[in-house]
């Protein structure tokens, strides 16, 4: 009886089924097909344009002639270009440092609170990150308005001289960085808070028993434990800040007299408004090395985190 049953099963099994090997091969074919839309999107809309922009950067303005490094030579001779380089670096580095510091401090304060209350505060403090930056920058623009600045109204009442927020190049830079910090520090706060929560409470207790004070606990326990997250977050933010477009575009549009342009806005001005696509592409390509370095370190850190886990 058992034999009959077994034989009955065996026949379809032998002829109809895929071998495990074929099964595995079919599995990877299905997997490849499932990933195909992703591959197509990345290839057509990210990889191809990235290389195409290298090609574009080597053409003349009407895109009829190959000029090699001509566009770059042209840029190197222009003062505006060097100003943009300087400003982009200044903006990105200053803003990231301040975002990290503000985020770190705020995260610690929130972490200090009793845990029932934390959610509410965290919710309020993340709002700048949730509002579309273009929209919130409009609010800042209005706060910095030359004739109706609400800040200047307060200053006047406090007896402080008024400030030409966006009219003066130095103040304009300050404003751009300030808005950047405002938009970005909540992200740091959330990341640090998550990292702080993963520091075991026993470590603090052990340190307290060893006689560490509040500052020493942060310095010797929190900072080392959070180092990886701090690095990843800062590098992420460096990329986003360095490539930022919205804030400068809306707040100053590069002015006064190109004093606040960064790579993204200047490239936009040259390519879309000035109709010189190759020159715009050349400018935007200067972002690539910094982004590549940051990406390299992020990847390394993320990998290391993966290994630790």
């Amino acid at each position, binding site marked *: 009886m058992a034999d009959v049953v077994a034989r009955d099963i065996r026949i379809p099994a032998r002829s109809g089924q895929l071998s495990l090997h074929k099964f595995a091969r079919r599995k990877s074919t299905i997997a490849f097909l499932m990933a195909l839309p992703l591959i197509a999107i990345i290839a057509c809309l990210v990889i191809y344009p990235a290389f195409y922009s290298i090609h574009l950067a080597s053409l003349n303005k009407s895109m009829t002639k190959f000029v090699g490094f001509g566009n770059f030579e042209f840029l190197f001779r222009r003062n505006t270009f060097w100003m943009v380089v300087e400003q982009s670096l200044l903006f990105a580095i200053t803003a990231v440092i301040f975002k990290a510091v503000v985020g770190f401090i705020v995260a610690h304060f929130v972490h200090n609170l*009793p845990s029932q209350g934390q959610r509410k505060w965290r919710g309020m403090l993340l709002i700048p990150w*949730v509002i579309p930056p273009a929209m919130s920058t409009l609010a800042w623009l209005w706060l910095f308005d030359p004739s109706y600045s609400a800040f200047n109204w307060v200053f006047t009442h406090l007896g402080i001289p008024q400030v030409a927020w966006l009219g003066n190049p130095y103040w304009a830079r300050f404003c751009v960085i300030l808005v950047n910090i405002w938009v970005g520090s909540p992200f740091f706060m959330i990341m640090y808070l998550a990292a702080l929560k993963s520091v075991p409470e026993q470590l603090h207790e052990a340190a307290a028993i060893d006689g560490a004070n509040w500052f020493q606990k942060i310095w010797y326990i929190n900072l080392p434990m959070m180092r990886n997250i701090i690095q990843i977050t800062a590098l992420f933010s460096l990329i986003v800040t360095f490539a930022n477009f919205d804030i400068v575009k809306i707040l100053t549009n590069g002015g006064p007299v190109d004093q606040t342009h960064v790579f993204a806005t200047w490239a936009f001005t040259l390519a879309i408004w000035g109709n010189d696509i190759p020159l715009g592409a050349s400018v935007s390509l200067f972002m690539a090395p910094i982004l590549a370095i940051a990406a390299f370190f992020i990847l390394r850190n993320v990998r290391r985190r993966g290994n630790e886990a």
Partner: protein
Amino acid sequence: MTMTTAAAAAGQIGRARYGSISRGRRRALFWSYFFLILFVIFFLTPPVYMFITSLKSSAEISAATNPWWVYHPTLSNYIDLLTQNQFLIFFRNSAIVSICVVSITMVVSIFAAFALARMRFWGSATLATGVFLTYLIPESLLFIPLFKTFAYIHDKTGIELINHWWVLIILYPTLTVPFATWLMIGYFSSIPKELDEAALIDGAGYIQMLTRIFIPVAIPGIIAAMIFSFTVSWANFLYPLAFTTSADQLVLPVGIVTTLIRGDVYAWGQIMTGALLGAAPPLIIYAFLMDYYISGLTAGATKG
């Protein structure tokens, strides 16, 4: 005798120190609240000021009164905008673009993430890293070549890709798909391997495994990825600014910036109202789904 006094002394010291600990904690708490209030004021000033201005008439805005207070609140800005055809078109364009982008993103990223996290094929590990790296490429590096490519496609085929709102549906996935895929890979990898083996033994094929096990189990991750895709496509400013120009093809952020700012004349009441309405959908989603939002944010940057 000596033992008891020693014990009593120890008890006293213990009690004294105990008191100081709780006092110290209370002081720390006080300063925490103090500084947090300062930071909340800093963080909430712009949105609150947006709201204050949106309730003012143009006359009150240009009067030299306290800008931080509304003396004659009015909803006229809201009524003006919401009955204005143009603004509703922006809103519609934004809504359609975002919904389409979210749908495309989720379909593409869920399938791809499942393939990359669980099935493996030749080059899949490299592809996973590649996905992460493309997520780091900002749109400000890509818009020029894409712009040129679209112009070129128009020259060759006659399909007009520039100055149409729907072209954003093609563009935004460059921003959302890599991140969403990365996020979903993380969520799918955290599902224990035994679960798929159990499903395999139970007789599920790969598609059934995905639809009946992985998707239901990873719902929180899917929600986080959807929120992220929505926020990104709702908020993007650079692509629509570069690719669309006619007033009826604009999406909300660009529409507000370009049409409400006419030359040097700023209709601030309307601009702030528009900005507030433009910020509303992400804020509302955030208010209801904060935990998903935050888990997506922290996981996206750190999950390997």
